[in-house]
């Protein structure tokens, strides 16, 4: 018998035995297959071993070597199948070279800025209370930032030292009516009311600007959220109730609120709002009933509709929530800071 023929038979046996063991669906199945290939009397391997006698003498070492390799491969396939079918019936020993405590290969995931996270939460809560987000420009004219908000020309709030007035840049901009960076997001309320009939239920969020010297609690740019609800028969009790719902949602437990009198040009009555939480009163922001002059300036009839507005500083809320002690941290953008949120 030619050596090549014998080797081919061995190869075929390896393939068919491996395939058969892999396909065995049960231990009984496997046992039948084992007898078929490895049976000590009638097994296919046994019969091939018998044929080795007819291989040429000088080819015998090679044939024997290949036979042993085949036998090992078939037995390995059997063992693998046995393990597969019997679960963990085989004895197990830990591989000492595998250190399961080595660090994993982490997925590098970035972080949203904590102010963004706070803003998104505010939007989310107010959205559930029926307030949609309205956007408006950060660069504003005096009408939307002051006039329409009941802040007349001589009002101290319009002082050049307290605002970022812009050098004339727009062709259509008269020199005596400079544009400025908005000092409050209430400007958006005016724009929405000018273009939309009541009822209105919006929040506006975004950057506002006031020339403060940067320190631990001030920054010349910060974020505000302002809410506005205009409809027939809106009262201060509605304002208090909406703010209580907001606070309870934000803080996750029943919260009471109180009003302290305050003064803002665009609301009357005007109040400071405090939350009672963890046995102390926490300042939330300003609020009030929209001043009739503001309603008139946007073309609403203050005898027909009424409404409330409220505003809060996002940074302050975020600082309190996350224990940030210095507002300047928000704008340094040190990745070690950003990674904490």
């Amino acid at each position, binding site marked *: 018998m030619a050596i090549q023929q014998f080797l081919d038979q061995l190869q075929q046996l390896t393939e068919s035995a491996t395939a058969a063991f892999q396909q065995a669906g049960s231990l009984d199945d496997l046992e039948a297959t084992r007898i078929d290939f490895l049976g000590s009397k009638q097994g296919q391997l046994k019969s091939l071993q018998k044929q080795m006698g007819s291989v040429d003498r000088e080819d015998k070492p090679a044939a024997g070597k290949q036979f042993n390799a085949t036998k090992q491969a078939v037995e390995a396939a059997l063992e693998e199948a046995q393990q597969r079918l019997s679960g963990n019936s085989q004895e197990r020993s830990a591989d000492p070279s595998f250190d399961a405590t080595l660090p994993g290969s982490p997925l*590098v*995931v*970035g972080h*949203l*800025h904590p*102010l*963004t996270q706070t803003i998104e939460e505010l939007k989310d809560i*107010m959205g559930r*209370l*029926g307030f*949609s987000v309205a*956007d408006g420009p*950060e*660069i504003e*004219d005096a009408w939307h930032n002051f006039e329409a908000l009941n802040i007349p020309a001589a009002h101290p709030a319009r002082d050049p*030292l307290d*605002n*970022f007035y*812009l*050098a004339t*840049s*727009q*062709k*259509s*901009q008269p020199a005596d009516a400079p*544009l400025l*960076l908005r000092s409050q997001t209430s400007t958006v309320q005016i724009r929405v009311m000018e273009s939309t009939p009541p*009822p209105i*239920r919006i929040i506006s969020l975004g*950057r506002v*600007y006031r020339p403060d010297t*940067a320190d631990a609690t001030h920054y*010349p*740019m910060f974020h505000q959220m302002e809410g506005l609800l205009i409809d027939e028969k809106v*009262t*201060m*009790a*509605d304002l*208090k*109730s909406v703010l*209580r719902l907001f606070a309870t949602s934000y803080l996750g437990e029943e919260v*009471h609120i109180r*009003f*302290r*009198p*305050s*003064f803002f040009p665009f609301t*009357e*009555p*005007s109040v400071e709002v405090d939350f009672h939480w963890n046995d102390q009163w926490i300042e939330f922001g300003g609020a009030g*009933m929209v001043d009739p002059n503001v309603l008139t300036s946007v073309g609403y009839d203050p005898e027909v509709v*009424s409404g409330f507005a409220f505003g809060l500083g996002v940074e302050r809320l975020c600082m309190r929530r996350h224990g940030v002690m210095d507002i300047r941290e*928000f*704008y*340094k*953008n*040190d*990745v*070690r800071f*950003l990674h904490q949120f």
Partner: protein
Amino acid sequence: MLVSWNWLKQYVDLGMTQAELEDRFSMSGLNHEGTRPVGDDLAIELEVPSNRPDCLGHIGVAREVSVLYDQPLKLPAADPASGSDSAADYVQLRLEAQQLCPHYTARIIRGVKVQASPAWLVDLLATIFRPINHDWAPVNNIVDITNYVLMEVGQPLHAFDLAKVQGGQVIVREAQAEETFVAIDHNEYTLAAGMCVIGDTNRAIALGGVMGGADSEVSSQTSDLLIEAARFDPLATRTTARALGLHSPSSFRFERGVDPLGVDWASRRCCQLILEIAGGEMAEGIVEAGAAGQSSEPVVLRLAQLERILGIHIPADEVARILTTLGCLIQESNSESIELTAPSWRGDLSREIDLVEDLARVHGYDKIPEDVGVPMASSQRTDRDRVQDRLRQALVSAGFDEAITASMVPADWPGEFMAWTERQPIRSNTPMLKGADTLRTSLVPSLLEARRVNQSLANPLIELFETASIYLPSDDQLPRQQWTLALASGQGYFAVKGLLESLLAALKISQETELKPVDLPLLDISRSAELWLDGERLGLLGDVCQAGCDTFSLRGETTILELNIELLARLAELVPQHKPTSAYPSISRDLNVIVAESVRWSQLQQLVAATSGDQLEHLLYRETYRDVERDGENTKRILFTIVLRSDEGTMTGQQADELRDAAVAQIEQQLEGRLLAT
């Protein structure tokens, strides 16, 4: 405003505890900021809102107590006796600047004895001045009395030494440019137009509403006095005080507006105290120019408005009590409305809504319920928010941290990166932070600066993005404010380009991005491109060149991407529509083509896409390499894979080969390339 407990109780009974009163103040509009003991007295610090200058004196605060606790208010006397000679005999008054000083009055007292003030007066003043200025000391009885009346009723007063008023004339005028003046603080100030000067025939003797002059002040030698009580314009006073950095209790009150009818009362009160304490004789009459203000116009309060605005009912008799105690004169009232005139010291009560507010704060905001049923309403998320959310989520998933940087930047930054406009950026008259007075026209320089800061801290991984407005000058009324996304990465051009592709995929934008060459000083000229989408400029992508890195002191490779979010929002498919998927398997073919160095991948891509049609599922770039020895100069080999799939049946190898061969034929024909191997 610091309030003395002992002083306050002269005008109203204080039967309540200190803590109770403080809390009540806070809840009714005078926020309690703290209390300090001074001697046997208490200094209670209250924050007085800018619309309540009436509470910048003890009587005003006492009136609040009186209305809050329903206690009578006891006002002091202000009826000084006068002698037979007339004030007009001693001084002539000329008011030349009525726009700066609507009302000026002077009284004359002769023969006073200037000496130390009595202990009761010193003690009361010490209670409210010492907590602010530890070294405060009384001056003399005359000056102390003017300060006392100032803090009693909120009307500033000034006592001149009559002998120092030269020429017997008081002239109220606008300051001349460059005029100088030495104030009581012994500093010299250079005045300017728009400032109000009290002068005699020779010089300025006081800066109206702000501070008296050093050489007309009352001293131990003084015997005759001119007592000024006047009303100065709020805005002019404010401008003057700010311009000179000279803020005084007087300017603080004039800025907010004094009682337009209270000038004379304060003058009489002051003179009465001087006569009582320092002796002397007051001349008959008053020297006066300008006019006291008008009393307020009547206001009608409809009682139904209270419930309409506040959501609570306040009984009519309580309404009447509060308004009367506050000093309102009720002219007419019936079951539906009250017509009244507000007191002159309450300039803030000119409209019905003002009365609603005052009634609410006195009656108590705690009476307003916090649990009424507010009607439900729908709310919508804006597309801008949806798009921004998807972009942020994709970027965070790609390992980027979100930065928030300032909207104003140093003037030279935009010049480094004029990507979106040719026009000069908008500048502010006031810088936001040191040197940053320019509204940014790109977010990129800000992110490069943030990258530099992180590099200086040796932070290992600095991948930052930001979404914010940029400000582009335009011909419209307002500048164009473009919502923009930018990022700065250390991962290199192709990683960032791949990220761009992922961002577009996240928004389901299927249009191809077109890349055009761009030449910006900040960017490497080869490794940068302007991005165009749907015929509009989408943004920029590129590696920062060495010069750019030097400008921003950056180490190592930096790649930037900046995109117009508004364009992305227009093209985004926020509600993707289902397309049936083929039931048959795909088949792929690898190609290795030799093309000239100048051939761009985008050309190959277009050709292959055009020849393979709908059956091309993916075109996967593998690699480029060069073999000059075999292929010659200026050639390169591009390896890529086409993945093909048919909707109609399993694509056979033969069909795939045909599509591949068709593509190769086009590559040969149009790009003069050839297939090296498959």
